[in-house]
């Protein structure tokens, strides 16, 4: 199977290097309008560099394309790729509006290609383990859940994140991981209540989901946390509680003495290494789904529903009211 990658920023480079290392997959092209990023990715993976998508579409042979562009471009390039008969693996969020997401899903259906969206938390082993505990009955009925995802503001290094029209803000871009995870684990959501404060290089949100089952979850997301990126989650049920905390599961910590040239502070880098990264597990799964025609662990419709939760949360934060789902009738 031949694959190309569109967008050679952080995630695009991750996708490209994973494809380059995959058996039975050939990475034929990497594309970025910033030629140096494409060249760099090409050098590391052996693929051909392109600075224009149209050019790559014309010249490179591929069946599948990974789209790792800024969120506001997902729709345009997904539809271009679908119309060219390419299966699409898009980074999350699927799109910034439900209308766009719906059009993307329809377009891929009409053109007979698959659409996958990178809700990678479904491939993080700590989150998979939590869902397993629930599915195996160890928690009884899920009752009250929490999820938290906090880190620095990506707009500090990439300006498009600062534009809500381009990134969707912290709920659509970051919290959507937990919204998807919670819906995956606890089922469909009945109402959404959101609280949000946005300032320069700060976007903080608290969102409460009431599920059709009666369960409730509160989700925290912070762009503007002055510390290491970290995630936490908990599901408390009638028979048990499961808790995950990225800070408490670092299996490796590298502590370094200060170098003489730098300010004299010790440096500790915590890590949680695995033989296969969640991104690798995700892309392997998507490629396998394309090969076998099987249903994905996370479907395009799941991505639509995750976006619906984020959009409802924004609507709630704006109006101050609890928002009932579904937002629009399909």
């Amino acid at each position, binding site marked *: 199977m031949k694959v190309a990658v569109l967008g050679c920023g952080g995630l695009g480079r991750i996708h490209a290097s994973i494809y380059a290392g995959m058996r039975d997959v050939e990475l034929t092209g990497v594309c970025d309008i910033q030629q140096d990023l494409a060249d760099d990715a090409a050098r590391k993976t052996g693929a051909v560099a392109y600075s224009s998508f149209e050019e790559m579409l014309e010249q490179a042979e591929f069946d599948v394309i990974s789209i790792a562009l800024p969120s506001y471009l997902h729709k345009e390039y997904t539809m271009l790729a679908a119309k060219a008969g390419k299966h699409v693996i898009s980074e999350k969020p699927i799109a910034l509006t439900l209308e766009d997401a719906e059009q993307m899903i329809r377009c891929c259906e009409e053109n007979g290609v698959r659409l996958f969206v990178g809700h990678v938390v479904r491939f993080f082993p700590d989150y998979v383990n939590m869902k397993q505990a629930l599915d195996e009955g160890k928690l009884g009925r899920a009752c009250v859940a929490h999820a938290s995802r906090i880190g620095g503001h990506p707009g500090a290094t990439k300006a498009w994140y600062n534009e809500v029209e381009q990134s969707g803000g912290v709920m659509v871009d970051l919290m959507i991981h937990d919204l998807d995870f919670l819906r995956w684990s606890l089922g469909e959501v009945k109402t959404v209540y959101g609280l949000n404060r946005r300032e320069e290089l700060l976007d*903080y949100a608290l969102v409460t989901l009431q599920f059709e089952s009666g369960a409730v979850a509160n989700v925290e997301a912070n762009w503007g946390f002055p510390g290491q990126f970290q995630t936490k989650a908990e599901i408390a049920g009638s028979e048990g509680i499961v808790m995950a905390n990225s800070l408490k599961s670092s299996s490796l910590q590298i502590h370094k003495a200060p170098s003489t040239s730098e300010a004299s502070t010790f440096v500790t880098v915590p890590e949680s290494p695995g033989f296969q990264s969640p991104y690798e597990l995700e892309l392997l799964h998507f490629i396998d789904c394309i090969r076998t025609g099987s249903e994905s662990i996370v479907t395009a419709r799941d991505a639509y529903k995750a976006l619906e939760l984020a959009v409802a949360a924004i609507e709630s934060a704006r109006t101050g009211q609890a928002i009932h789902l579904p937002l629009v009738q399909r």
Partner: protein
Amino acid sequence: MKKLKIGMISFAHGHAFSYFNSLHALPEVEVTGIADSVPSRVENLVRAHQLSYYEDYRQLLDTDIDAVVICSENVYHAEITIEAARRGKHVLCEKPLGITKESMEAMIAACQDNNVQLMTAFPCRYLAAVIQAKKAVERGEIGDIIAIKGTNRGGFPGGWFVDPKLSGGGALLDHTVHVMDLMNWFIGSDVKEVYAYAAPLFQENIAVEDAGMIHVKFASGVFGVLDTSWSRNGTFPTWGDVTMEIVGTKGVISVDGFAQKNELYSKANGKGTWEFWGDNMDAYMIQDFVDALRSGTPVPITGEDGLRSAYVALAGYQSLQQGQPVQI
């Protein structure tokens, strides 16, 4: 200076035992008697410390005590407080202060009218981490507060706590007030809007909610959320928690009030447990109550503070009925 004479009224709420121990440890205090309509709750204590016992709290109020500590079922807080005030006794009342706005206002008025002090038992203000966090906020270390996410979770208390005729409500009332008081204390602005969800989720066939998630908006624009659930089961290594993520424009303060613990793995317990070794917040709260009465200065946490927090929980029940935020 003569000793402060204190009577304790009802041990329905288990915190009474800790308050007794804290009072008993103070040389400037004499616990003279205990009133409890259920003698079995206190008979060991009465015997061990040779205290006077009264079945009817009014008999205790007839003695020459200066103050009372009330740990009755929630619904009796108002009646006992008002009776104590009428007889000129200062009051330390267990939280929640009351179960209706009107009854709490009557408690405050009765104490004012009779020139006695009313303090609400919010010991979480005496967690060292909470105090340091407040100082850090005041020093401007995280800029301006924009939000607080709190939790005050616990085990299922059973007994009168889950009988609405005696408790006035479940987990939402029981566990909103502690951290709500801290939020009020930190933010110093009035809550103007409340949105809550609560339901009996963990236990089956109970008459009150055991899960609660309450959201507040302050007049200053700060918002908060608080998990009040009785979500900790018997296998959990500790009773519950008091936590706050205080999010500011220039940083975040994380408070985990009972993080000062050792992990104990003893066959005697049948499970791993967390052994708290931090300072005893109850003792510091009791000391402050006693100091205020002896020096004639205002108690540090008032009846109004108790009303303010409990009223948020009561507004939460209104919001629950309407399914939307309510203004207060």
